[in-house]
Every structure is written in C-alpha cells, then in structure tokens.
C-alpha cells in the first residue's frame, strides 16, 4: 500500500541553557492513508517534537519527511493539520467561534463569504457542536467544546493527516470519552489519517491502528495495536503497560518502577533505557540496539528480546 507519510531518520536538536538537547534523534516511521498511529511515551520522550516536525512547525536538522511522495521538511501544508494539546491556549481568546473556524478559508482566499459560512456550518456539525455556539468566545465554552472547535478549525482545511497532541488529557473523563468517540467516527467519515500523541496507552488503544513507543528521542517499539498491547516486546512498553492503573480493584498492582523519565539533556549511552531496565545486560549499556522484527510488522529495539527469540 502506498504510504501517505514517510519519516526517515529525522533528528531535531536544540540548545537550552548551554546544554545540547537531542529531542528527536533518528526516528523513522510510516503511515498509510486513513490509518491512525499512536505516539506514546513519557514527558521528554520527544513525541510532541516529532509531531511538530511532521507538521512543519519545526525543521529537522537531519532526515527526510515525505508526504504523498513529496519532501516536506519544515513546510506547513494545508493537508497536514495540528491540533494542540491545550485548547484554551490554541484558540485566540479575542475571536469568536465562527471566525476561529473560518480563518483557514479566509487565508486561502478561495471561497466567497456565503461558501465560507456554509463550510463553517458543515465543520461545526461534523464535530458535533450546535450552531448556537457560532458567535461565542472561547472562554464561554467548556473544555470539550473548545477542543472540538480546534478540531473544526483544522478540518476546514480538508486535511488528509491530523496530528492530535494529547487531545483528551486536559478534559474531564466523560468529555474525553465523547471526544474519543468523535475522533473515531470522524476518521471513518473523512478517511483521515491520524497521528495521536498521548502519554496514555489506553487512549491510543481506543483510536489507533498502529502504535510507536518513544523513549528519549527514539522509537523503541512499533507495531499494530493488538501486537503491542497483547505481546509487548520492549521492557519499556511493558513498564508503561504495568503502570497504567486499571479501574478493576481485583487487578490491583503497584508495580515497582525503576528510575525516572529520562532527562533529555542527559541521555545515557547504549540502549537509552538500560538504567531503568530490569533485564539490562552489559551489551545494553554499550551498544544501541537495532530494530528487530519479532512478528511481521512488530519491531522492537531491544538486545534482550532479540536474544530471547533466537
């Protein structure tokens, strides 16, 4: 199948307070049209930076990004849209809902007034908001409504890829659940591709077809959702899964978790996860692991998994 998005070995470094930070350090991935990829990892793993690189908000120092066959590093395309984590900050507080959603069309300048309004109404309906909100200001909306306006704002550009940065983390549980349901149905209706960035594996589980687990600027494991969730290959993925609190009191466990999320200014040598890995060996602290395909389409970058399989 032709890939809509191909990311090849991209890297993004920056300097903060005199230390060089390798936010994204050689990441490759691909995504077919109409599919959803979940990017998971702790804070500082580089998942948001990767999202911004794909969106063109940042320009990678190294590597290529292809979208529908074209190179797009550092370019912002109408067909790739980014929905920001904090919808309160992502909506200009001085603009009304109508203008917020309409803005992309005005910039494009392709449509007349009436056409624009029709399209705004369509987008509003698509995200499940009533027309009565059209002339409200963002501060008059609930968290869920703001997030929907942000999505409508992106949808009006007719994107083929939507990058969603922590879409539900700032919402209440019930509002979050409804938004996830909306995201699922929107994808089918519009044949959209998603990149869903989240720290919460359960959220990714609800919406995505593929998962990529990031740690310290690198992808450590990727594959189909079922593969990752039923038979995680990397110890980091296992750690994340075990740390997820289940609402079932019968499945109580407070796992012993070693170490802290990696500090991107002090990335360890070898396998970046080795100081926190319960199974780390000598090789892990010296040689960065290569990807290894444990089952078709399921790649893991871990020395131990590789040796266990052979």
């Amino acid at each position, binding site marked *: 199948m032709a890939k809509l998005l191909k990311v090849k070995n991209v890297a993004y470094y920056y300097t903060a307070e005199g230390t060089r930070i390798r936010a994204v350090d050689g990441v490759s991935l691909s995504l077919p049209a109409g599919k959803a990829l979940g990017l998971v990892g702790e804070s500082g793993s580089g998942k948001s930076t990767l999202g911004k690189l794909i969106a063109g908000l940042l320009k990678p120092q190294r590597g290529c990004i292809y979208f529908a066959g074209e190179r797009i590093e550092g370019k*912002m395309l109408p067909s790739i*849209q*980014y929905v920001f984590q904090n919808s309160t900050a*992502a*909506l200009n*507080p001085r603009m009304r809902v109508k203008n917020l959603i309409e*803005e992309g069309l005005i910039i494009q300048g392709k449509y007349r007034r009436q056409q624009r309004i029709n399209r705004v109404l369509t987008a509003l309906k698509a995200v499940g908001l009533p027309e009565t909100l059209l002339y409200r200001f963002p501060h008059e909306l609930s968290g869920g409504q703001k997030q929907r306006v942000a999505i409508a704002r992106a949808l009006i550009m007719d994107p083929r890829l939507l990058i969603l940065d922590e879409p539900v983390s700032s919402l209440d549980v019930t509002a979050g659940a409804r938004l996830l349901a909306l995201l699922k149905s929107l994808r089918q209706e519009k044949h959209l591709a998603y990149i869903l960035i989240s720290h919460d594996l359960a959220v990714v589980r609800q919406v995505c077809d593929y998962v990529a687990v990031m740690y310290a600027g690198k992808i450590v494991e990727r594959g189909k959702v079922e593969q990752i969730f039923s038979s995680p290959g990397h110890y980091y993925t296992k750690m994340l899964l075990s740390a997820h609190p289940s609402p079932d009191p019968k499945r109580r466990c407070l796992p012993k978790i070693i170490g802290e999320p990696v500090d991107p200014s002090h990335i360890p040598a070898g396998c970046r996860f080795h100081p926190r890995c319960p199974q780390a060996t000598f090789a892990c602290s010296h040689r960065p692991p290569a990807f290894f395909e444990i089952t078709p389409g399921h790649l893991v970058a871990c020395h131990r998994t590789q040796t266990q399989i052979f």
Partner: protein
Amino acid sequence: MEAKNAGNTEFLIGISLIIILSALALLAPLLAAHDPYETDAQNWLQPPCKEHPFGTDRLGRDIFSRVLYGARVSLAVGTLSMLMSVAIGFLLGMAAGYFGGVLDGLIMRFTDIVLVFPSMLLVLTLVAIFEPALWLVIFVIGGTGWPGVARLVRGEVLQLRTKEFIQSARMLGANHFRIMLYHLLPNALGPVLVAATLSVPAAVMTEAGVSYFGLGIQPPIPTWGNMLRGAQLYLRHAWWYAFFPGLFIFLTVFAFHLTGEGLRKQLGLTRVRRRG
C-alpha cells in the same frame, strides 16, 4: 481577589472627571466670563468673588478663565503626545518582540538609552536647546515617552508569541502581517490601552512641570504650569493665584490615573488566580 466593582467605581469616577474636564476645555469660550488675556490693572490680585470665582492674577486677569483655557493646552499636550508615544512604542515593541534577534537587541538598547534619562530632565534639556513652543513641547514629550510602551508591548508579544494559537494560525498559513494584526494586536490591546491612559497624566505632569520651570509654553498663553510660576512671588498674599491652577493639574492627572487603574482591574490585568 480584586472586587470587580471596585475597579468599576474607580473607572466611573475617573472617566466622568475626564469628561467634565474635557467639556470645560472645549467650551472654554462659552464658559469663561472674561477674556483670559484681558488685563485689569484696577482689580489685580482680587480674592475669589462672584465676578471672579477663582480670583484674579497680578495683571488682574480672571484666573477662572485662564484655568479653563489652560485646560485646552494641558489636554492637547496630554492626548497628542500620548498618541505619539503609543504609536512609536507600539511599533518598536511589536517589531522587537515579534522578530526578535538582532533587531530586538538594537531596539531594546535604544529603549534603554532613552529610559535612563530622567524624563523631566530630558524634556527640559531638549526644550531648552530649541525655542520653547507648544508643538515642540508636544513633540518632545511624545518623542521621549515611548520606551515604557515599547517595553510593555514587547513583553506582551514575547509572551503571546509562544502561545499555541499563534502556531495554530501559522499552520493555517497565516503570514506575519495577519498574525500581528489579527492575533497579536487584539490580545495586546488591553495592556496598551492602560499604558496609553497612564501616559496622558505623565505628559500633563511633564508639561506643567516644564512650564513651571519657565521653559515650556511661554506666557501670555495660559497654562497651568506657567500660571503657577507667575504665582510664586505672591504666595503670601494671594493663595488662590497658585491654588486653582495646581488643583486642576492634580484633578486631571488623578482622573487619568483612576481611569487607568479602573481599566486595569476591569480588564483583569492584575493577575489573580482563583481555583476550585
């Protein structure tokens, strides 16, 4: 937590005072019973009476009329130099904050240089170098009053620039012009409005001060500052001569400060958080 109503009363009192003072200034020819330039050697230094509610000065001129005409000068200087400094400050601050880098460094050092001169001293010096005149006073006060606005706008823009809604507009393809006009400007407007309101009294004060020192707008044009200067020698015998012009300086400056403070609270610019 600031009570919203407190801001309201301040604003209302301030703005009403401003309206009254402006009306007095605009309607001066109608309200003044006497020509402010008309001398009357017979009736010099008359205490306040029915004919002359604020008394007369050393040349027998009606102080009430002169105060009204003085209001025109003060308010003209205040508003015009405010407009000038807000315009300069806004443009420089926006450019520095938005584009950053070398331009930012240059603009900010320039701002620092203007800022380290005490404003009164700077205006005094510049007015002294050239011939004192009304337009010069306006020009000099406006031309030296912008650094505060520039710093404020820059700070505001720097803060707004990191907000996601700016990046979001960029994602939709907005250019610099659109981002500045539709996204930065409306959001920076509140603080600028407050700063603009507060730069009027600063200008009024400076003009009055410079005129009081004898270097601003020259007699016989009546200004509150030069009336006070004229009164200085008659303090012992004619309290009204100095009292009323000064009172009007105070009232005008106070009115704008009240309005500015009221606006600040009304716009929620005092950062107070409430959590639940």
